[in-house]
C-alpha cells in the first residue's frame, strides 16, 4: 500500500478473563478504502474494532497498538477516545432497534453527535439533522426528527444509525454486521446506501460480516478471520478466484451457488475451537483437509502469496490453486 494508512492496527490482542479472544491482529485501513472483515461468530472480527475504539468492558485485557494518523488509541485518555469516537471513526451495529435509545427522539440522538463533534446546537443542529436524515434516504425527514425509534422500521432505524454516524463527518465508518438483523430486500438497500455515501463523502469503510456475499458486493479488500487471527487478506476479486487459505476456500465452498448444477456444499467439518482449548499450532488444523504434521507445531506466520495477498498457512504458497467454487 502506497498511501499512509488512516488506521493502523498492529499486534492487537484481547483476552477476557484469561481466555484469548484476539491473538495478534495486524490490519491497516487506507483513507477512503472499503475493507471487509469476514469470519464466523467468535472469530474476533467485532472485538477488533471494539478494542481499537476502547468500547470493550473493563475486564477485557488489551495489548498491542491501534493508531489513527499516528495517535495511539490503546490506553488513550477518555478525552482522546471521545474525540475519535463518532468524530474520526464512527461505528454502527447489528441490531438497529436496540442500538438507539428508546426514550429519546431521533432528532435528539442525531443532534447529540452534532453537538459533540461539530459544536452545533438548537436550530442549526436540527436543520443539519434533517439534512442527514434526507441524505440517508428517510422520507419525510422533518417529521421523523420527532419520532421515537420504536415508531420506525428496522431498516429506517439502521438509516438513523448511519445518519448519527455521519454527523461527526467521520473518515472511517465501521459497520458491524449492519444488515444481519434486516430483511433481504432491506439489506440490499442499506448496502447500497453505504456504497453511495462512501462515494459522496470519501470516507473509508470497514464492513464486518459473517456473509462473504455481503462483503464481496461492497468491499475492495477482504480479511478473513479465524479464532482471533487474520488468516488471509486479499483484494476481493483475487480472494474469490485464488483463495490460498483452506479456511477461506471452505467458507467460499459453503456458500450455496445461485446457478449451475446442485451438488453437496463443501462444508468444513467440525466447529470453531473454544478459546480455552486452542490447538497448539494452526487453529484451523483440526478441521483442515490439507493438514500436515508441521501444522500442529507452531502458529503459521503470515506469508505473501502475491502482491497485496497474504495468508497465514504453511501450505498456502504451494497450495495456491483456484478455489473449487471460483466464480466466473
Amino acid at each position, binding site marked *: 500500500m502506497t498511501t499512509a494508512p488512516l488506521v493502523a492496527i498492529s499486534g492487537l490482542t484481547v483476552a477476557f478473563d484469561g481466555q484469548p479472544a484476539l491473538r495478534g491482529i495486524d490490519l491497516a485501513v487506507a483513507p477512503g478504502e472499503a475493507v471487509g472483515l469476514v469470519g464466523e461468530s467468535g472469530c474476533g472480527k467485532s472485538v477488533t474494532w471494539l478494542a481499537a*475504539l476502547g*468500547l470493550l468492558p473493563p475486564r477485557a485485557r488489551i495489548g498491542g497498538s491501534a493508531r489513527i494518523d499516528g495517535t495511539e488509541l490503546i490506553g488513550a485518555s*477518555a*478525552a482522546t*477516545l*471521545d*474525540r*475519535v*469516537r*463518532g*468524530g474520526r471513526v*464512527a*461505528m454502527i*451495529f447489528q*441490531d438497529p432497534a*436496540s*442500538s*438507539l*435509545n*428508546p*426514550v*429519546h427522539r431521533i432528532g435528539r440522538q442525531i443532534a*447529540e*453527535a452534532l453537538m*459533540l*463533534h461539530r459544536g452545533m446546537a438548537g436550530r442549526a443542529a436540527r436543520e443539519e439533522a434533517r439534512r442527514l436524515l434526507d441524505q440517508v434516504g428517510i422520507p419525510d425527514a422533518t417529521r421523523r426528527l420527532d419520532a*421515537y425509534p*420504536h*415508531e420506525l422500521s428496522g431498516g429506517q432505524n439502521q438509516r438513523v*444509525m448511519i445518519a*448519527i454516524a455521519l454527523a*461527526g463527518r467521520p473518515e472511517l465508518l465501521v459497520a458491524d454486521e449492519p444488515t444481519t438483523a434486516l430483511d433481504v430486500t432491506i439489506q440490499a438497500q442499506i448496502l447500497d446506501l453505504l456504497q453511495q455515501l462512501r462515494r459522496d463523502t470519501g470516507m473509508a469503510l470497514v464492513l464486518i460480516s459473517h456473509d462473504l456475499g455481503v462483503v464481496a458486493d461492497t468491499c475492495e479488500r477482504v480479511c478473513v478471520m479465524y479464532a482471533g487471527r487474520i488468516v488471509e487478506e486479499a483484494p476481493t476479486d483475487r480472494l474469490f478466484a485464488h483463495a490460498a487459505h483452506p479456511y477461506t476456500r471452505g467458507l467460499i465452498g459453503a456458500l450455496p451457488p445461485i446457478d449451475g448444477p446442485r451438488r453437496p456444499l463443501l462444508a468444513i467439518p467440525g466447529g470453531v475451537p473454544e478459546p480455552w482449548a486452542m490447538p497448539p499450532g494452526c487453529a484451523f488444523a483440526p478441521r483442515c483437509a490439507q493438514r500436515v504434521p508441521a501444522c500442529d507445531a507452531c502458529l503459521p506466520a503470515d506469508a505473501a502469496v502475491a502482491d497485496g495477498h497474504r495468508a497465514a498457512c504453511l501450505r498456502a504458497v504451494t497450495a495456491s490453486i483456484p478455489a473449487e467454487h471460483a466464480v466466473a
Partner: protein
Amino acid sequence: MLRFLAFRLARAALTIAMVVTFAFIVLRMSGDPAQIIMGADAPPEAVDAFRTAWGLDRPLWEQYFHYFGAILSGDLGRSMRDGRDAIVLVAERIPATLALTIPALLIKVGIGVPAGIYAALHRNSLADRIVMVIAVAGFTVPSFVLGLILVLVFAVQLGWLPSGGQESWRHAILPIITLGVGGAAVLARFTRSAMLEVLGQPFIRTASAKGVPWRMVVTNHALPNAAIPTVTIIGFMVGSLIAGAVVVESVFSWPGVGRLLVVAVSNRDLAVVQCILLLVACTMVVANLVVDLLYGLLDPRLRSAPRQATA
C-alpha cells in the same frame, strides 16, 4: 387517552370496593364488638342495648348495604368507643404519621437511589460489595428488630435519643431512621439491577461509540431508562406513606395512624378500622395510578407501541 383514564379509574374504584367489602367481612367474622367493648362482665341487657344502638343485631347483608351506602354518601361511621366521627379520629393522627413517613421516604430515595447507581457503575468493586452487603442486611432485618436495636444502642446505652413518645423532634429521629433504612436498602438493590440491565443494552455502546463522554452516557442515556422500573418501587413507597408505619409506631409509641389501627383492631372499633383501611386503599390506588401515568411520560413505547394480543 380519556378511554385509558376512564378504564383505570373504574379499575381503581373496583379495587377500593373490594377492600371495603373484604374488611367488612373479616371484621364481622372475628368476634363480637359489643362483648369486647362492653367488657366480659357487662350485663346481657346492656350488651343487647349496645347491639341495637349500633345496628349489630340486623342481618349481616343489611349491615353491609347500610354501611356501603353510608360510605358512598361520605359517612364513614362513628367510633364505638367514644362516639366521635371515625374520619375525625383518623385525620387527627395523619400529621403524626406523615411526620415519620415523609422524612423516611426522603431517606429511602435520597440514599437508596444514589447508592444503587453508584454500585452499578462500580460493579464488583469494594464499594459495590459494601453497598450490597448493607442493602441485604437492611431489608432482611425486620423493622421491629432494627427499631429495638437502635433503641438499645442510642437510647439505652448511649442515652443520646429518647426511646419513645412524641414530645420533640428528637423523638422522631429513631423511628424515621428505622423506617428509612429498610426502604433505602430495597431501592438500592432495585436501582442497581435496573442500572446494570440498562448499561448492558446496545444503545449504551452506541452512545459511547458516538463519542459521548461516560458521565453524559450515564446521565443522558442510562438514567432515563433505568428510571422506568425504579419509579414503580418508589410509587409503591409513596402509596404506603399512611399505612407503612404500623410496626414502627408501635415500637416507638408514636401516636400515628398505625398505632390507632392497632388499638382499634384490638378493641373491635369497627368504624375506625374500616376508615383506616379505606384510606390506605385509596392512597395505594392513587399512587398506582400516578405511577402508570408517569410510565407514559418516561417511556414513549408505552404511548404508542403496538401490542400483540392473542387471537
